[in-house]
Protein backbone atom coordinates (compact mmCIF):
# COMPACT_ATOMS: atom_id res chain seq x y z
CA UNK A 1 0.00 0.00 0.00
CA UNK A 2 1.49 3.26 -1.10
CA UNK A 3 1.38 6.21 1.28
CA UNK A 4 -0.73 9.12 0.06
CA UNK A 5 2.35 11.34 0.05
CA UNK A 6 4.29 9.05 -2.28
CA UNK A 7 5.72 10.89 -5.28
CA UNK A 8 6.36 8.45 -8.15
CA UNK A 9 9.93 8.26 -9.39
CA UNK A 10 8.58 7.60 -12.86
CA UNK A 11 7.70 11.17 -13.65
CA UNK A 12 5.06 12.41 -16.09
CA UNK A 13 7.92 13.68 -18.27
CA UNK A 14 9.40 10.19 -18.52
CA UNK A 15 6.01 8.63 -19.19
CA UNK A 16 5.43 11.15 -21.96
CA UNK A 17 8.85 10.39 -23.44
CA UNK A 18 8.85 6.61 -23.22
CA UNK A 19 5.26 5.43 -22.80
CA UNK A 20 3.15 8.12 -24.47
CA UNK A 21 0.01 5.96 -24.67
CA UNK A 22 0.06 5.39 -20.92
CA UNK A 23 -0.12 9.13 -20.42
CA UNK A 24 -3.54 9.09 -22.04
CA UNK A 25 -4.86 6.47 -19.61
CA UNK A 26 -6.49 8.57 -16.94
CA UNK A 27 -7.09 5.50 -14.81
CA UNK A 28 -3.57 4.17 -14.51
CA UNK A 29 -2.25 4.17 -10.95
CA UNK A 30 1.01 3.46 -9.16
CA UNK A 31 0.88 0.43 -6.90
CA UNK A 32 4.39 0.19 -5.42
CA UNK A 33 7.54 2.12 -4.76
CA UNK A 34 10.31 1.83 -7.33
CA UNK A 35 12.90 -0.89 -6.92
CA UNK A 36 14.85 -3.74 -8.43
CA UNK A 37 13.88 -6.56 -6.08
CA UNK A 38 11.60 -8.11 -8.70
CA UNK A 39 10.88 -7.63 -12.37
CA UNK A 40 7.92 -7.93 -14.73
CA UNK A 41 8.61 -11.63 -15.37
CA UNK A 42 8.25 -12.49 -11.70
CA UNK A 43 5.46 -9.97 -11.04
CA UNK A 44 3.37 -11.63 -13.75
CA UNK A 45 3.19 -14.68 -11.50
CA UNK A 46 2.68 -12.71 -8.25
CA UNK A 47 6.31 -13.11 -7.22
CA UNK A 48 7.76 -9.94 -5.71
CA UNK A 49 10.84 -11.50 -4.14
CA UNK A 50 13.19 -12.05 -7.05
CA UNK A 51 14.15 -11.04 -10.55
CA UNK A 52 13.50 -13.83 -13.02
CA UNK A 53 16.08 -13.56 -15.77
CA UNK A 54 16.55 -16.45 -18.16
CA UNK A 55 20.06 -17.35 -19.19
CA UNK A 56 21.64 -18.99 -22.19
CA UNK A 57 23.98 -21.95 -21.69
CA UNK A 58 26.99 -19.61 -21.91
CA UNK A 59 25.64 -17.57 -19.00
CA UNK A 60 24.51 -14.58 -21.07
CA UNK A 61 21.00 -13.22 -20.60
CA UNK A 62 18.44 -14.91 -22.80
CA UNK A 63 16.28 -12.24 -24.43
CA UNK A 64 14.52 -14.49 -26.94
CA UNK A 65 10.74 -14.38 -26.91
CA UNK A 66 10.66 -18.13 -27.46
CA UNK A 67 12.54 -18.74 -24.22
CA UNK A 68 10.00 -16.74 -22.19
CA UNK A 69 7.15 -18.53 -23.94
CA UNK A 70 8.74 -21.84 -22.92
CA UNK A 71 9.29 -20.59 -19.39
CA UNK A 72 5.63 -19.77 -18.81
CA UNK A 73 4.54 -23.00 -20.48
CA UNK A 74 6.86 -24.94 -18.17
CA UNK A 75 5.21 -23.46 -15.08
CA UNK A 76 1.69 -24.31 -16.26
CA UNK A 77 0.53 -21.58 -18.63
CA UNK A 78 -1.11 -22.31 -21.95
CA UNK A 79 -1.26 -20.07 -24.96
CA UNK A 80 -4.64 -18.43 -25.56
CA UNK A 81 -6.20 -16.03 -28.00
CA UNK A 82 -8.84 -14.86 -25.55
CA UNK A 83 -7.96 -11.95 -23.30
CA UNK A 84 -11.45 -11.44 -21.95
CA UNK A 85 -11.72 -11.56 -18.20
CA UNK A 86 -12.42 -15.01 -16.77
CA UNK A 87 -12.81 -15.57 -13.06
CA UNK A 88 -10.39 -17.96 -11.35
CA UNK A 89 -7.67 -17.84 -13.97
CA UNK A 90 -4.54 -15.80 -14.51
CA UNK A 91 -3.88 -14.30 -17.89
CA UNK A 92 -0.67 -12.71 -18.99
CA UNK A 93 0.48 -10.89 -22.13
CA UNK A 94 4.03 -10.90 -23.46
CA UNK A 95 5.33 -7.83 -25.28
CA UNK A 96 8.05 -8.15 -27.90
CA UNK A 97 9.91 -6.55 -30.75
CA UNK A 98 10.06 -9.29 -33.37
CA UNK A 99 11.69 -12.20 -31.54
CA UNK A 100 12.99 -10.19 -28.60
CA UNK A 101 11.12 -10.32 -25.33
CA UNK A 102 10.47 -6.90 -23.74
CA UNK A 103 7.78 -7.03 -21.09
CA UNK A 104 4.95 -9.04 -19.58
CA UNK A 105 1.72 -7.79 -17.99
CA UNK A 106 -0.80 -9.68 -15.83
CA UNK A 107 -4.55 -9.27 -16.10
CA UNK A 108 -6.44 -8.25 -12.97
CA UNK A 109 -9.87 -9.52 -11.95
CA UNK A 110 -11.52 -6.35 -13.21
CA UNK A 111 -9.94 -6.68 -16.63
CA UNK A 112 -7.24 -4.07 -16.05
CA UNK A 113 -3.57 -5.00 -16.16
CA UNK A 114 -0.71 -5.06 -13.66
CA UNK A 115 2.81 -4.28 -14.83
CA UNK A 116 6.14 -3.90 -13.12
CA UNK A 117 7.88 -1.25 -15.17
CA UNK A 118 11.49 -2.37 -15.04
CA UNK A 119 13.11 -0.83 -11.98
CA UNK A 120 10.40 1.80 -11.70
CA UNK A 121 7.17 1.26 -9.81
CA UNK A 122 4.58 -1.34 -10.67
CA UNK A 123 1.35 0.08 -11.99
CA UNK A 124 -2.19 -0.84 -12.92
CA UNK A 125 -3.28 0.26 -16.36
CA UNK A 126 -6.51 0.01 -18.32
CA UNK A 127 -5.41 -1.65 -21.54
CA UNK A 128 -2.52 -3.60 -22.99
CA UNK A 129 -2.17 -0.89 -25.57
CA UNK A 130 -1.16 1.57 -22.83
CA UNK A 131 2.38 0.15 -22.84
CA UNK A 132 2.67 -0.51 -26.55
CA UNK A 133 5.07 1.54 -28.60
CA UNK A 134 8.73 2.09 -29.29
CA UNK A 135 9.87 0.93 -25.89
CA UNK A 136 8.09 -2.34 -25.15
CA UNK A 137 6.91 -3.17 -28.64
CA UNK A 138 3.52 -4.85 -28.90
CA UNK A 139 1.68 -7.52 -26.89
CA UNK A 140 2.17 -10.56 -29.11
CA UNK A 141 1.35 -13.69 -27.11
CA UNK A 142 -1.25 -14.32 -24.42
CA UNK A 143 -1.25 -17.08 -21.83
CA UNK A 144 -3.79 -18.45 -19.41
CA UNK A 145 -3.13 -20.39 -16.23
CA UNK A 146 -6.11 -22.36 -14.98
Amino acid at each position, binding site marked *: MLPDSYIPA*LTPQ*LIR*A*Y*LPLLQKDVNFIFKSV*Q*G*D*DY*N*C*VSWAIHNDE*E*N*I*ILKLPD*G*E*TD*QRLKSYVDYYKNIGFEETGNIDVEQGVTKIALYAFADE*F*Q*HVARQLADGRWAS*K*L*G*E*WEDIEHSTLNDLAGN*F*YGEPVIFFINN
Partner: protein
Amino acid sequence: MESGFVAGRQHTSGTQLNLFALIKPNRNRSNIFFVTCVMTDAQLYQELSALPDSLKQEVADFITFLKQKVQPKEPKERPLGLAKDKIFIKDNFDDPIPNVAGDLEKQFNELATKWKDETRLYSLPPKKINETYLKIIARGESYLPFILKDIQRGGSVYWHFALKAITGNNEIQDDFSRSRILKDAWIKWGKDNFII
Protein backbone atom coordinates in the same frame (compact mmCIF):
# COMPACT_ATOMS: atom_id res chain seq x y z
CA MET B 1 107.27 16.63 3.65
CA GLU B 2 106.15 16.68 0.08
CA SER B 3 103.48 19.22 -0.64
CA GLY B 4 101.57 20.07 -3.78
CA PHE B 5 99.09 22.71 -2.72
CA VAL B 6 98.52 25.02 0.17
CA ALA B 7 95.27 26.79 0.89
CA GLY B 8 94.28 29.03 3.71
CA ARG B 9 92.10 31.79 5.05
CA GLN B 10 93.36 34.95 6.58
CA HIS B 11 91.48 36.12 9.62
CA THR B 12 93.25 39.12 11.02
CA SER B 13 95.87 41.08 9.14
CA GLY B 14 98.12 38.13 8.62
CA THR B 15 98.51 37.21 12.24
CA GLN B 16 96.30 34.11 12.17
CA LEU B 17 96.04 31.61 9.37
CA ASN B 18 94.05 28.45 9.00
CA LEU B 19 96.09 26.36 6.66
CA PHE B 20 95.06 23.38 4.63
CA ALA B 21 98.09 21.47 3.56
CA LEU B 22 97.56 19.01 0.76
CA ILE B 23 100.39 16.63 1.07
CA LYS B 24 100.03 14.75 -2.18
CA PRO B 25 99.41 16.29 -5.59
CA ASN B 26 96.54 13.86 -6.38
CA ARG B 27 94.32 15.80 -3.96
CA ASN B 28 92.93 12.74 -2.39
CA ARG B 29 90.66 14.00 0.35
CA SER B 30 91.97 11.47 2.79
CA ASN B 31 95.30 13.20 2.64
CA ILE B 32 94.10 16.66 3.69
CA PHE B 33 95.40 17.82 7.02
CA PHE B 34 93.85 20.70 8.86
CA VAL B 35 96.38 22.82 10.65
CA THR B 36 95.59 25.76 12.82
CA CYS B 37 98.46 27.96 13.75
CA VAL B 38 98.91 31.44 15.03
CA MET B 39 102.03 33.20 13.79
CA THR B 40 103.41 36.65 13.92
CA ASP B 41 104.38 38.35 10.65
CA ALA B 42 108.02 37.70 11.49
CA GLN B 43 107.38 34.02 12.05
CA LEU B 44 105.47 33.89 8.78
CA TYR B 45 108.33 35.48 6.93
CA GLN B 46 110.75 33.09 8.59
CA GLU B 47 108.67 30.10 7.54
CA LEU B 48 108.37 31.47 4.03
CA SER B 49 112.05 32.03 3.73
CA ALA B 50 112.75 28.44 4.66
CA LEU B 51 110.60 27.11 1.85
CA PRO B 52 112.22 25.85 -1.35
CA ASP B 53 111.80 28.11 -4.35
CA SER B 54 109.09 25.98 -5.94
CA LEU B 55 106.87 26.31 -2.87
CA LYS B 56 107.63 29.97 -2.51
CA GLN B 57 106.17 30.43 -5.98
CA GLU B 58 103.04 28.55 -4.90
CA VAL B 59 102.68 30.75 -1.85
CA ALA B 60 103.06 33.79 -4.08
CA ASP B 61 100.37 32.47 -6.38
CA PHE B 62 98.09 31.83 -3.45
CA ILE B 63 98.60 35.35 -2.13
CA THR B 64 97.63 36.65 -5.56
CA PHE B 65 94.54 34.46 -5.42
CA LEU B 66 93.66 35.79 -1.97
CA LYS B 67 93.97 39.36 -3.12
CA GLN B 68 91.60 38.71 -5.97
CA LYS B 69 89.18 36.93 -3.69
CA VAL B 70 88.88 39.73 -1.19
CA GLN B 71 88.46 42.44 -3.79
CA PRO B 72 84.91 43.82 -3.52
CA LYS B 73 82.83 43.09 -6.60
CA GLU B 74 81.02 45.92 -8.13
CA PRO B 75 77.32 45.09 -8.20
CA LYS B 76 76.00 44.52 -11.70
CA GLU B 77 73.07 46.58 -12.65
CA ARG B 78 70.10 44.29 -13.24
CA PRO B 79 68.09 45.28 -16.27
CA LEU B 80 64.43 45.72 -15.51
CA GLY B 81 61.57 44.15 -17.41
CA LEU B 82 63.18 40.85 -18.44
CA ALA B 83 60.07 38.92 -17.31
CA LYS B 84 57.66 41.31 -18.92
CA ASP B 85 54.73 39.43 -20.54
CA LYS B 86 56.03 36.13 -19.14
CA ILE B 87 54.29 36.30 -15.81
CA PHE B 88 50.64 37.25 -15.58
CA ILE B 89 47.66 36.90 -13.28
CA LYS B 90 44.58 35.26 -14.68
CA ASP B 91 41.32 37.16 -14.66
CA ASN B 92 39.79 34.54 -12.34
CA PHE B 93 42.63 34.79 -9.81
CA ASP B 94 40.31 35.97 -7.07
CA ASP B 95 37.56 33.46 -7.84
CA PRO B 96 36.84 30.71 -5.29
CA ILE B 97 38.99 27.60 -5.77
CA PRO B 98 36.87 25.08 -7.72
CA ASN B 99 35.47 22.13 -5.81
CA VAL B 100 36.97 19.39 -7.97
CA ALA B 101 35.45 16.51 -6.03
CA GLY B 102 32.08 18.23 -5.97
CA ASP B 103 32.21 18.88 -9.70
CA LEU B 104 33.07 15.24 -10.34
CA GLU B 105 30.15 14.05 -8.26
CA LYS B 106 27.86 16.50 -10.04
CA GLN B 107 29.00 15.14 -13.42
CA PHE B 108 28.41 11.61 -12.20
CA ASN B 109 24.94 12.43 -10.90
CA GLU B 110 23.98 13.98 -14.22
CA LEU B 111 25.16 10.95 -16.18
CA ALA B 112 23.64 8.52 -13.68
CA THR B 113 20.27 10.26 -13.86
CA LYS B 114 20.40 10.23 -17.65
CA TRP B 115 21.25 6.53 -17.65
CA LYS B 116 18.47 5.78 -15.19
CA ASP B 117 15.91 7.66 -17.25
CA GLU B 118 17.00 5.90 -20.43
CA THR B 119 17.08 2.32 -19.17
CA ARG B 120 15.11 1.90 -15.97
CA LEU B 121 12.02 0.76 -17.82
CA TYR B 122 13.88 -2.33 -19.00
CA SER B 123 13.70 -5.58 -17.09
CA LEU B 124 16.64 -7.47 -18.55
CA PRO B 125 20.31 -6.68 -17.81
CA PRO B 126 21.74 -6.33 -21.34
CA LYS B 127 19.41 -3.43 -22.11
CA LYS B 128 20.87 -1.49 -19.20
CA ILE B 129 24.17 -1.11 -21.02
CA ASN B 130 23.79 1.84 -23.35
CA GLU B 131 25.99 4.72 -24.49
CA THR B 132 25.53 6.69 -21.28
CA TYR B 133 26.45 3.65 -19.21
CA LEU B 134 29.63 3.20 -21.24
CA LYS B 135 30.51 6.86 -20.66
CA ILE B 136 30.24 6.26 -16.93
CA ILE B 137 32.47 3.19 -17.18
CA ALA B 138 34.96 5.20 -19.22
CA ARG B 139 35.44 7.59 -16.30
CA GLY B 140 36.96 4.66 -14.43
CA GLU B 141 37.92 4.75 -10.79
CA SER B 142 37.07 8.43 -10.38
CA TYR B 143 33.38 7.45 -10.34
CA LEU B 144 33.81 4.35 -8.20
CA PRO B 145 32.93 5.94 -4.84
CA PHE B 146 29.84 7.59 -6.31
CA ILE B 147 28.57 4.35 -7.85
CA LEU B 148 29.05 2.47 -4.59
CA LYS B 149 27.38 5.25 -2.61
CA ASP B 150 24.45 5.17 -5.04
CA ILE B 151 24.07 1.46 -4.38
CA GLN B 152 24.22 2.15 -0.65
CA ARG B 153 21.34 4.58 -1.08
CA GLY B 154 19.28 1.92 -2.84
CA GLY B 155 20.47 2.56 -6.40
CA SER B 156 20.34 0.09 -9.21
CA VAL B 157 21.67 -3.44 -8.94
CA TYR B 158 22.69 -3.06 -12.57
CA TRP B 159 25.69 -0.95 -11.55
CA HIS B 160 27.17 -4.41 -11.24
CA PHE B 161 28.52 -4.45 -14.80
CA ALA B 162 30.15 -1.04 -14.42
CA LEU B 163 31.72 -2.02 -11.12
CA LYS B 164 33.10 -5.20 -12.65
CA ALA B 165 34.50 -3.30 -15.61
CA ILE B 166 36.08 -0.56 -13.52
CA THR B 167 37.49 -2.70 -10.72
CA GLY B 168 38.34 -5.88 -12.62
CA ASN B 169 36.74 -7.78 -9.75
CA ASN B 170 35.07 -10.87 -11.20
CA GLU B 171 34.53 -12.62 -7.90
CA ILE B 172 31.00 -11.27 -7.50
CA GLN B 173 28.73 -13.35 -9.71
CA ASP B 174 26.27 -11.98 -12.26
CA ASP B 175 23.27 -13.19 -10.27
CA PHE B 176 20.53 -10.56 -10.31
CA SER B 177 17.82 -12.81 -8.93
CA ARG B 178 18.30 -11.47 -5.40
CA SER B 179 19.39 -7.91 -5.96
CA ARG B 180 19.92 -7.22 -2.27
CA ILE B 181 22.59 -9.93 -2.06
CA LEU B 182 24.44 -8.57 -5.08
CA LYS B 183 24.31 -5.00 -3.80
CA ASP B 184 25.48 -6.03 -0.34
CA ALA B 185 28.43 -7.86 -1.89
CA TRP B 186 29.55 -4.68 -3.67
CA ILE B 187 29.00 -2.51 -0.60
CA LYS B 188 31.14 -4.92 1.42
CA TRP B 189 33.79 -4.87 -1.30
CA GLY B 190 33.79 -1.07 -1.26
CA LYS B 191 34.22 -0.99 2.50
CA ASP B 192 36.91 -3.68 2.50
CA ASN B 193 38.84 -1.63 -0.04
CA PHE B 194 38.32 1.65 1.85
CA ILE B 195 36.43 3.26 -1.04
CA ILE B 196 33.26 3.95 0.95
